[in-house]
């Protein structure tokens, strides 16, 4: 581990917010209240696709206790163009329609109106009094069906971007992408083994345990306070400012503690509605989604179809790879098909690649990011096919991957050439792991898969304030979803040379620190960590300047070491080192408070690679899969707080296991969601999983002072394929559709005469 080079980085101290979270003091979205607050509730469409002919809210508005009612008329129309909101690029015409339906209800659960009332009961009664005249239209959910000619069209104005020549035909295909490298035909001509399969994945949800919640308080002078459980309160400010034409300085957003997000809380659902209701009612409005609403109306990730074809020569060299990915984007364009295409073959150094992607709208909630968006879906298909190639060549699955692994200098099919990356080291660590070397117990089979994610940099701001007693507060703007306060404090302590406990990380509201992009894209420890380190370095410069003043020497004659200002050499003069506390106590006399600041757009987020190994058993009579052993190996750059890095790997694996085995949306013939709850949307429970072993490979990222790479998203990429590969080796049956649930696996097993799995 990197610990030996650093004093604090690599250790496992208690997180600063631990006591709050284990005693129930920590306040999440639904834990904030204001005196006199109203309860807001949303009326949601029961139809998957319907024209909204009229909405009559008069009876609801007249109900005693109802203080405000809003429909799309209360939200300004937005232009049909891509604009920056915060740091994302969004089409506000679509965003406002997802927040509150305008011409059409586009999915079961789509918000159509909302009320604010003195009690939840009155609000519920009011919703029942709102009369909406729908003209129900045929709907489409499955991506293949949505792409076919004659499928119900969601948006008459939509044309496919990226077609040459451009087409003027109404369509559900919002965009076509293509990436190519080398000569695909020549590549396949040279291939001695070609494997081709068609795969599908079902739509899945991030599954955060905390439903969306917000509290808005709009004052008559136009200033607004908002509490929201979000992965990015600056992003919430950006969206609300754009959607409601409110200046950002008027909007003060506080990020509450967040009960999980995984990408699903990087957009807005309730916040703009709560603000409009509060503005109309002149009272604070609190809105909390029920679990049913979270499943029906908040952004899951895409279901999709993936065709993969891989050609290799007998010696195990992959010479050609071809892939077509079509992903649901939900009610409005914007699925993660771009990242899916780019991640598909990113792990491999292949000369001839062609990848085509389609972004396809369908009557489901607008898709939101879910942990390495798009990459797990592409990896499910590609890593399954790679395993088939390994079997065809009678090669060890890790050997085949090692033989074709991308490394520094590998040119990707989406353009860039890799700089320093750690896939080879990760594959070797997997090969040499205790797990991979262990013999397989009878009745068990082993699967392997690799995964890649870019990791993101982006805007971050940070400040470091010295208290009179010399302890330091480090301020930054990223909600702490998985322990990032601890890693920021570790990096600050390391840079400052003081004990970890002397540094207090704080995450204030949007008016108390500069802009910060969302907590997501595995960026916080990398990008915000960089801002924190720079802010501390800025503070150190000021501390040195103050010491220089006290000693009356030149500033550059002072150095900072282990938390002390020291003369750079003996010939500067005989001066006792000045501690942080000593300098802080004289701050007033030497120039005033000592604060450091930094803000940046972090560049060079090093990509992450993971290799997963799973041993499992299949009950052939029932189709039930039991995960017996799981090891996740990942290049993590430098593990700042190893326990929380391990936690990211273990959490990603658990979500991957759910995605692989039992999680899916189930719709009825009318396009209505049948399993909008944790009973029938089956996420892994504690008894479903073994301990999840982790191997942290550290190939430091050259673009970060402490070699940090993002770690949060890679772990969800390999699991589905690793499990699929193990099931294939256990049963001889190659599953191509997710989830591999007991009824589906049992049907597949029954369709094949019993034969021993080729070991």
């Amino acid at each position, binding site marked *: 581990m990197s610990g030996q080079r650093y004093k604090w980085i690599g250790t496992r101290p208690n997180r600063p917010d631990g006591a709050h979270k284990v005693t129930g003091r920590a306040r999440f979205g639904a834990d904030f209240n204001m005196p006199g607050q109203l309860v807001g509730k949303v009326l949601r469409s029961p139809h998957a696709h319907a024209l909204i002919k009229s909405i009559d809210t008069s009876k609801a508005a007249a109900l005693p206790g109802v203080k405000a009612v809003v429909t799309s008329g209360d939200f300004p129309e937005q232009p049909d163009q*891509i604009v*920056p909101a915060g*740091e*994302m*690029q969004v089409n506000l015409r679509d965003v406002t329609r997802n927040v509150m339906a305008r011409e059409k209800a586009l999915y079961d659960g789509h918000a159509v109106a909302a009320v604010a009332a003195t009690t939840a009961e009155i609000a519920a009664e009011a919703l029942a009094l709102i009369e909406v005249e729908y003209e129900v239209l045929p709907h489409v959910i499955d991506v293949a069906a949505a792409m076919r000619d004659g499928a119900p069209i969601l948006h008459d104005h939509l044309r496919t971007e*990226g077609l*040459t020549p451009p087409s003027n035909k109404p369509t559900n295909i919002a965009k*076509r*992408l*293509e*990436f*190519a490298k080398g000569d695909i035909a020549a590549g396949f001509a040279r291939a001695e083994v070609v494997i081709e399969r068609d795969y599908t994945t079902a739509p899945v949800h*991030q599954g955060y345990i905390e439903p969306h919640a917000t509290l808005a308080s709009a004052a008559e002078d136009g200033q607004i306070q908002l509490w929201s459980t979000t992965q990015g309160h600056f992003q919430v400010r950006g969206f609300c400012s754009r959607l409601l034409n409110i200046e950002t300085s008027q909007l003060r957003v506080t990020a509450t503690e967040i009960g999980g997000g*995984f*990408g*699903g809380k*990087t957009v807005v659902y309730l916040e703009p509605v709560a603000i409009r209701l509060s503005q109309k009612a002149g009272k604070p409005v609190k809105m909390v989604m029920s679990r049913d609403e979270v499943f029906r109306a908040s952004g899951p*990730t895409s279901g999709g179809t993936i065709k993969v074809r891989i050609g290799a020569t007998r010696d195990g060299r992959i010479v050609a790879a071809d892939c077509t990915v079509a992903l649901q984007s939900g009610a409005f364009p914007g699925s*993660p098909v*771009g*990242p899916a295409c*780019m991640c598909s073959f990113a792990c491999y150094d292949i000369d001839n690649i062609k990848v085509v992607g389609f972004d396809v709208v369908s009557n489901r909630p607008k898709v*939101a*990011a*879910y*942990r*390495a*968006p798009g990459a797990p879906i592409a990896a499910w298909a590609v890593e399954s096919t790679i395993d088939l190639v390994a079997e065809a060549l009678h090669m060890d699955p890790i050997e085949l991957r090692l033989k074709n692994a991308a490394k520094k200098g590998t040119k990707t099919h*989406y*353009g*860039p*050439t*890799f*700089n320093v990356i750690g896939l080879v080291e990760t594959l070797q660590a997997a090969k040499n792991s205790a797990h991979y070397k262990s013999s397989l117990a009878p009745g068990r089979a082993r699967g392997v898969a690799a995964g890649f994610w*870019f*990791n*993101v*940099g*982006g805007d971050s701001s940070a400040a470091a304030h010295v208290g009179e007693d010399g302890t330091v507060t480090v301020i930054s703007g990223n909600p702490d979803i998985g322990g990032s306060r601890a890693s920021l404090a570790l990096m600050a302590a390391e840079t400052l040379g003081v004990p970890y406990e002397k540094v207090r990380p704080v995450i204030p509201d949007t008016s108390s620190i500069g802009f910060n992009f*969302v907590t*997501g*894209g*595995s*960026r916080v420890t990398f990008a915000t960590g960089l801002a924190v380190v720079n802010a501390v370095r800025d503070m150190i410069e000021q501390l040195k300047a103050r010491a220089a003043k006290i000693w009356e020497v030149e500033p550059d004659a002072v150095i900072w070491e282990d938390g002390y200002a020291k003369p750079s050499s003996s010939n500067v003069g005989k001066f006792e080192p000045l501690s942080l506390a000593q300098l802080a106590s004289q701050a007033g006399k030497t120039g005033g408070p000592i604060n450091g600041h930094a803000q940046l*757009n972090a*560049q*060079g*987020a090093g*990509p992450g690679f993971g290799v997963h190994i799973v041993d499992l058993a299949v009950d052939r009579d029932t189709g039930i899969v039991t995960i017996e052993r799981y090891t996740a190996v990942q290049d993590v750059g430098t593990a700042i707080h190893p326990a929380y890095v391990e936690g990211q790997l273990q959490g990603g694996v658990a979500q991957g296991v759910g995605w692989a085995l039992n999680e899916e949306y189930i719709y009825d013939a009318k396009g209505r969601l049948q399993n909008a709850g944790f009973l029938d949307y089956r996420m892994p429970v504690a008894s479903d999983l073994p301990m999840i072993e982790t191997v942290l490979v550290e190939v430091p990222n050259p*673009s970060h002072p402490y070699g940090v790479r*993002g770690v949060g*998203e890679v772990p969800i990429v390999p699991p589905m394929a690793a499990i699929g590969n193990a099931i294939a080796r256990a049963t001889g049956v190659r599953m191509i559709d997710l989830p591999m649930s007991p009824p589906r696996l049992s049907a597949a097993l029954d369709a094949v005469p019993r034969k021993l799995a080729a070991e």
Partner: protein
Amino acid sequence: MAHVVLTYSFARQFADGRTEHEVPGNSVRHLIRALDERYPGIGARLSNDVAVAIDGVIHQNAFLEPVEPGSEVCFIPALQGG
């Protein structure tokens, strides 16, 4: 002079299908301006919803990012994390 790489989609839509280009300029902004002179309309597309990889290192919005002579600059669809 930088070695600019466009994705197949960008190339087909805006640059007669050519994905590889030698373009003068010592910052991303200059490269975009030079490309727009050669292929009118590409400038607007490359200025939003795009990430830029310079010698393998991806930059989210790298408008003023310096570009060394001979370095590889790729324009790729913007990335969003989850």
